[in-house]
């Protein structure tokens, strides 16, 4: 069985691209660790939107939902571990500047 993607694909692709660009900019233009985490979250949102749109357009929504649930679980674990790293780093260095993370080397 094959599926041909319809033209409305471009609507979802446009908004996926805008969210992705926003997330990348948020990560690159800041030096605050919490904002980098927020950038990662926005990137995750864009991927989630694209997965759901792909499931909707291909008629495989159940499979897309299963994948999105996996993405959400990974997202939560990533956020909690990075939040722990940020708190540990702040307690040690009294700063949230990503420039200071070189001191974590070794």
């Amino acid at each position: 069985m094959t599926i041909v993607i319809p033209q409305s694909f471009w609507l979802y692709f446009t908004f996926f691209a805008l969210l992705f660009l926003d997330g990348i900019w948020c990560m690159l233009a800041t030096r605050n660790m919490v904002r980098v985490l927020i950038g990662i979250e926005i990137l995750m949102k864009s991927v989630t939107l694209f997965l759901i749109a792909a499931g909707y357009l291909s008629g495989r929504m159940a499979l897309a939902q299963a994948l999105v649930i996996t993405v959400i679980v990974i997202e939560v674990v990533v956020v909690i571990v990075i939040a722990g790293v940020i708190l540990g780093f702040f307690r040690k260095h009294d700063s949230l500047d990503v420039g200071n993370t070189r001191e974590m080397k070794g």
Partner: protein
Amino acid sequence: MIWFTILLVVLVLAALWASMATALLRATLGLALTSALLAVVMYALGATLAAVIELSVCAGLITVVLVSVTSLTQPRTFKEALAARRSRLRRFWPLPFVLLAAGIGLSFVRVPVDIVLKVPAADGDVRTVLWSLRQLDLFGQILILLAGVFGVLVLFRKEAK
């Protein structure tokens, strides 16, 4: 279709607010709003189970974690906050224009899409797919959760004297 496009535009605006807000708490609220709007988009597309999980976990739990991190890290002095705000505005002012230009540019792209995907024949209920066809994903999720717990335990362990 128009209301759905408006919903997607509001979603991008909420994400823009999350990335541009000066205060971390506002940025966190912007992210929660983005998650809530994404859940509405999912619900509108028929992904009800994923929408509920997105709303409860991403708009709820992750917001609580980020607010906790923000409150546990020391606030800046007024002068530092003012200087950071100016520097931040310098770095972020092109972003809305870049997004607007990208949105307008991409809205004119109408390349014929002839992507043909080979997919499995069955696509039933999400619970059937999750528990019967994607069992390895569930195993991976359990491993990731355990890795997360282990990571947090390692991060917060007490140093040996």
